[in-house]
């Protein structure tokens, strides 16, 4: 009997910026067994709900994850607003949408970079993150924070963006779009990359759907789930289509994200063109009583905040179901039988965000 190689892959591992662990069992470089261990980032923040009043809990919620921090706060606020029946001013909805899409841009670029790093393409990593800095600049100029925006609140948003700034943002986006085009061409055309991504980590459409894949992981397999279609925030006033690819391999998931960058740019431009004038928040009084599953589309897919109020300032339960958590079963399926070199590629291809997955 030849021996197998057992590799503790993670929790600390340079291709995984976040801690997660796999017991990899290899024959040569063929993965015959891969079981994940999670829990390295579990903080237990959902129980802080009992110690923070619901308006302050936004600050906790947006620190579920530093990448789509804004969308967490948005989803939470929308949930509370629904329970309390608050009508948020229209301009606030548009601003939320704009910031959401900027978050998506920065998240996707970040992912493209990490992904390039995972397949050993350093220059591309640098390229993606260089472009991402211009997105972060916009976020900082409009919210005061690079990664933690602190701009959403129950009842609207904390800050407005001036008309001139909005114009300038729309203009800058053209330049960014050009740079992103160059970047994504490399991702989608270069044969050394295709060799690493094509037919790697294939997830069939049926598996994707029934294993609970969401976001680009699902869309890469041809399952067109995109919660923005439900028309929350200002998405009901904007036009876009869910980006899908058929093949279900790493390349398809990469292509979905690459193409979504352009959807986001387009959505931002539409929103800037259509944004109405008016106030950006309303005063909120009282306390939520009721429950709601607030859903939204994060860069990684469908996010669910289950909120349950009991009429006091402290909620009874907040449960955050993040896209990464539900993308783990498909990941476990995909990783069986791949090559060692594919392991980081496949793991990264679901764009795992352990921070929010474990809360």
């Amino acid at each position, binding site marked *: 009997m030849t021996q197998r190689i057992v590799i503790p892959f993670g929790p600390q591992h340079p291709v995984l910026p976040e801690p997660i662990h796999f017991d990899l069992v290899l024959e040569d470089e063929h993965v015959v067994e891969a079981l994940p*261990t*999670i*829990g390295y980032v*579990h903080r*237990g923040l*959902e*129980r802080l709900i*009992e110690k923070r009043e619901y308006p302050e809990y936004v600050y906790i919620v947006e620190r579920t994850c530093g990448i789509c921090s804004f969308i967490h706060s948005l989803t939470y606020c*929308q949930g509370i607003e*629904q329970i309390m029946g608050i009508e*948020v001013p*229209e301009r606030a*909805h548009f601003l939320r949408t704009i910031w959401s899409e900027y978050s998506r841009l920065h998240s996707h670029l970040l992912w493209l970079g990490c992904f390039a790093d995972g397949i050993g393409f350093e220059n591309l990593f640098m390229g993606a993150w260089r472009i991402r800095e211009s997105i972060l600049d916009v976020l900082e100029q409009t919210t005061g924070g690079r990664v933690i925006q602190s701009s959403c609140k129950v009842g609207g948003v904390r800050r407005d963006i001036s008309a001139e700034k909005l114009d300038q943002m729309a203009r800058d986006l053209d330049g960014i779009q050009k740079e992103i085009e160059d970047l994504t061409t490399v991702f989608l055309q270069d044969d050394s990359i295709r060799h690493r991504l094509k037919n790697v980590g294939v997830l069939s459409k049926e598996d994707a*759907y*029934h*294993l*609970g894949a969401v976001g680009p992981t699902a869309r890469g397999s041809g399952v067109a*789930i995109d*919660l923005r*279609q*439900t*028309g*929350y*925030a*200002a998405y*009901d006033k904007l036009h876009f289509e869910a980006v899908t690819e058929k093949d279900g391999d790493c390349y398809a998931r990469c292509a979905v994200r690459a193409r979504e960058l352009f959807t986001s740019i387009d959505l931002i431009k539409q929103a800037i063109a259509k944004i109405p004038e008016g106030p950006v928040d309303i005063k909120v009084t009282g306390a939520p009583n009721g429950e*709601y*599953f607030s*859903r939204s589309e994060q860069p990684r897919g*469908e996010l*669910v905040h*289950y909120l*349950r109020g009991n009429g006091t300032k402290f909620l*009874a*339960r907040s*449960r955050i*179901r993040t896209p990464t*958590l*539900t993308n*783990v*079963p*498909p990941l*476990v*399926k995909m990783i069986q039988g791949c090559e060692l070199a594919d392991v980081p590629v496949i793991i990264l291809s679901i764009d795992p965000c352990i921070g929010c997955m*474990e809360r």
Partner: protein
Amino acid sequence: MKYEAQTTTLVEVGRLIGRVEQFRSDGCRLVQISATKNGEMYEINYSFDKDYKFENIRITIPIDQEVPSISGMYWGAFVYENEMHDLFGIQVKGINIDYKGNLIKTTIKYPFGAGAVLKGEKP
């Protein structure tokens, strides 16, 4: 801004599997499973979605009651069910990949469960 319509149906524990099977055969996907402590009872929500139509079924169980696993129908349910076990202490019977309490290791046992004592709190 649109809020989506959501329905929540109460189901008896015994009929849970039947209902879930129905969702599966209707082509719904499993959105999430989550537990909530409600007094001396646990509520467990199973949420499904098909074409953006959100449906939720809910069972209510006493703290020490076992629930059946739905991982036979939805393979991926094991993450939620293990999580539910690790955080609430709810026993789930027949999970396909049973971590036996090792999915999320916590400083205190069943931090969301009845009687969990948080930091800085007195028992």
